[in-house]
């Protein structure tokens, strides 16, 4: 055996091993420490839960995207903290007749390349929003108004029927120079917003924005660089916020928000949102089915302990509904409160002759906060009432849409949410409670909720230019819808975001958005 002489200093192996370890240490040190993280002075990093596919909303828009897309491209109006339309590219937006709105483009409004915002840009944008297939914006317009140029940046938006919500709806039409606009998503290019795109990697959802030096409005942005990153996993977003790898995260669940509230360098902001999450009954049941009777539906609703779900399972991050649309929306009317009384549920069901009722609840994973736990609670709520609940959970991308449309299996209650980007009760009422028999023929109705009197009230409200009369019509529609007990229970989730204390000026609106130009770095 070969022996190494002892007492003559370190062996060759020890020297090589030491050198290897030293090299590894140096390599890791080079990556770690101050150089391991980006210089955060005058930069802000936003982590989004969904990939920002584009900087345009013709086809894609989710809550947080509103913030980012509008940092580059602007609309004539924007929805403010009170859900009212605020003027952005328009300096005036007035109803001059029941079917006409006269708009003046702000003469100061220019794009980042110095070009002026023109009426032609608005006209082309409106045409292109109609041309794309699968747009979520287009269906919100009862009809697209015609753009009539009056010269000097003034134009008329003329429709066949009155569109009272037009200033709200126009907040979703982002304006791009006509020559550069396309009937497709725009990932780069010029806009009139406070930031310009410095780098865009749509595949990874990572973007870098720099200040638009030609930004024309006030306040001027002060954060030099904004990074946008796509981080789908909530726990990763929370950890990254704690370690200051990102500065702002949004769409976080109640337990993460609670966890972050105890962290001294982090602030959690929360406002009641505009989305309506509900356990909607299937209204496509045959007439002799118990669920076709509104009294049975009402009796079943007594079995659900809404406060236990809101405060226990969802940690107070949602507000139980007191109507058929979110209470934050303009035009909302209080119609009643969900009552929890299992004894009453049982006695009412007995009185109505309903026994041995089996119900199937369906939902898609992630559709609302704590979805699985809430559905399991539903099963327990109905046990003492003598109703057997079966759960059927769909994974995203599965067949739930076919089930919802009545084209697959039968179901009784759907756990689901209905978003609202306009801030108007009218939009939600039109979508959920104004379906027609004509739509039912092609399964385009909202789960069989077809009540011609309610639909007629909603239609009249949408064409009524007098605000008081419109609100009166909407209140009637909401009362009639509530009397039908469309939902077993419903709630309005909060819009929640968390940010480092060093990042300020985030005024979160109920549509889960904020103005990036107002964000500052301490």
């Amino acid at each position, binding site marked *: 055996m070969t022996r190494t002489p002892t007492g003559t200093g370190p062996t060759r192996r020890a020297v090589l091993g030491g050198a290897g370890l030293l090299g590894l240490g140096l390599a890791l040190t080079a990556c770690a420490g101050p150089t391991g993280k980006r210089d955060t002075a005058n930069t802000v990093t936003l982590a989004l839960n969904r990939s920002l596919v584009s900087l345009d909303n013709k086809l894609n828009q989710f809550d947080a995207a509103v913030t980012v897309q509008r940092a580059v491209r602007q609309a004539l109006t924007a929805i403010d903290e009170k859900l009212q339309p605020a003027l952005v590219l328009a300096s005036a937006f007035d109803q001059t007749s029941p079917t006409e709105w006269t708009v003046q483009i702000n003469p100061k409004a220019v794009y980042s390349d110095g070009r002026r915002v023109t009426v032609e840009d608005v006209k082309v944008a409106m045409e292109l929003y109609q041309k794309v297939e699968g747009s979520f914006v287009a269906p919100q317009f009862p009809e697209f108004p015609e753009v009539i140029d009056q010269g000097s940046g003034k134009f008329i938006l003329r429709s066949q029927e009155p569109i009272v919500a037009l200033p709200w709806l126009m907040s979703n039409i982002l304006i791009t120079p006509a020559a550069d606009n396309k009937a497709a998503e725009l990932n780069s290019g010029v806009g009139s917003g406070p930031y310009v795109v410095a780098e865009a990697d749509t595949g990874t959802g990572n973007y870098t924005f720099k200040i638009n030096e030609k930004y024309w409005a006030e306040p001027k942005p002060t954060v030099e660089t904004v990074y946008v990153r796509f981080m789908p996993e909530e726990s990763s977003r929370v950890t990254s916020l704690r*370690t200051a790898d990102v500065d702002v995260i949004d769409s976080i669940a109640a337990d993460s928000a609670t966890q972050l509230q105890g962290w001294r360098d982090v602030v959690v902001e929360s406002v009641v949102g505009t989305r309506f999450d509900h356990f909607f009954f299937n209204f496509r049941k045959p007439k002799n089915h118990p669920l076709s009777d509104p009294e049975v539906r009402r009796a079943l609703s007594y079995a659900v302990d809404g406060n236990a779900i809101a405060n226990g399972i969802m940690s107070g991050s949602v507000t139980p509904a007191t109507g058929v649309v979110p209470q934050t929306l303009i035009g909302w009317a209080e119609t009643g409160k969900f009552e929890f009384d299992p004894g009453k549920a049982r006695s009412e069901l007995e009185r109505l002759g309903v026994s041995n009722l089996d119900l199937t609840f369906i939902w898609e994973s992630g559709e609302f906060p704590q979805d699985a736990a809430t559905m399991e609670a539903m099963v327990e709520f109905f046990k003492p009432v003598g109703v057997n609940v079966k759960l059927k959970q769909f994974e995203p991308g599965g067949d739930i849409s076919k089930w919802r449309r009545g084209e697959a299996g039968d179901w009784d209650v759907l756990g689901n949410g209905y978003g609202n980007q306009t801030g108007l009760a009218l939009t939600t009422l039109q979508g959920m409670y104004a379906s027609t028999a004509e739509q039912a023929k092609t399964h*385009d109705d909202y789960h069989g909720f077809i009540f011609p009197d309610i639909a007629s009230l909603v239609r009249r409200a949408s064409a009524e230019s007098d605000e008081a009369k419109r609100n009166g019509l909407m209140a009637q529609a909401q009362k009639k819808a509530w009397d039908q007990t469309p939902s077993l229970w419903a709630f309005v989730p909060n819009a929640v975001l968390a940010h480092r204390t060093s990042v300020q000026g985030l005024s979160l609106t109920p549509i889960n958005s904020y103005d990036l130009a107002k964000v500052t770095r301490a």
Partner: protein
Amino acid sequence: MFRYLALRIAQAILTIFVTVTIVFLLIRLAPGDPAYAYAGPLATAEQLDAVRRQFGLDQPLIVQYFHFLGGIFQGDTGTSYSFRQPALSVVMDRLPYTITLAIAAIVIAIIISIPLGVWMARRQNTGREATASILTIAGQSMPDFWIGIMLVTLFSVLLPWFPSSGFETWGGLVLPALTVAILQVAVLSRIVRREVAQTLQAPFITVARSRGVAGAGLVWGYGVRNSLVPVVTALGTRFAGLLNGVVVVEVVFGWPGIGSLVVRALETRDYPLIQSTVVVTAILAVLVQLVVDLVYPLLDPRVRLGRKVVS
């Protein structure tokens, strides 16, 4: 050699063809309709039909299949439904991240697992070897998401040395690569240990010893070198696996690789994106295996590509 290469390339093409065909059929057998995912839950029947027409989903399956195959030869695998851009370019945007992570992880794994495996082989049936074995088995048993969270807690939260997510600096690569590497080290070191231990029992080792070869020269020059073929095979297989994406690690570290892309594509039934990912990863896997095969003669002169091993 050229005959062998031609044969392997033909095999590779056949493998890719069979893989993409199976995937093409399987994703269409799964529940879910891309038209709903594209047009949204409130789309009308008319809008759904329009979307199906737009993407050719109203065509018979065989027509869709030949359209897809024809597209591959032209480098066009369709437009991603969710990204609304060429699916192949979406995959290629993500590919550098996946390759970077896979290479970093496999390099770390090689640096650690080979010396560790040799060390264990030389100390068979000792207390130290048993301890190392327990550690490697533990490393193999620990879920990668847990390892990732622990590393983030230790090196991002408690000791703020490395970023917890993203890849904006090289520091961002350290924790995800270590997370992936730990599992690879656990597996590879045990393979190295087994192979080297077996080789060290071989008659030619005794012959070498009798000629005065000993110590590191014997172990590394004779033992390890003659154990490398199965080790390289395992390395190639594991590297090819990493190129398919490491979904959990990508999710934990917000790493924009191919794995998380596939998950998203499956959720939205984005057929072109799923198919493009499969085409790209299948090509990569086949290439890696081909390289591994070409390396064999360099490691073992007895190996002649395209012929039987000379014994």
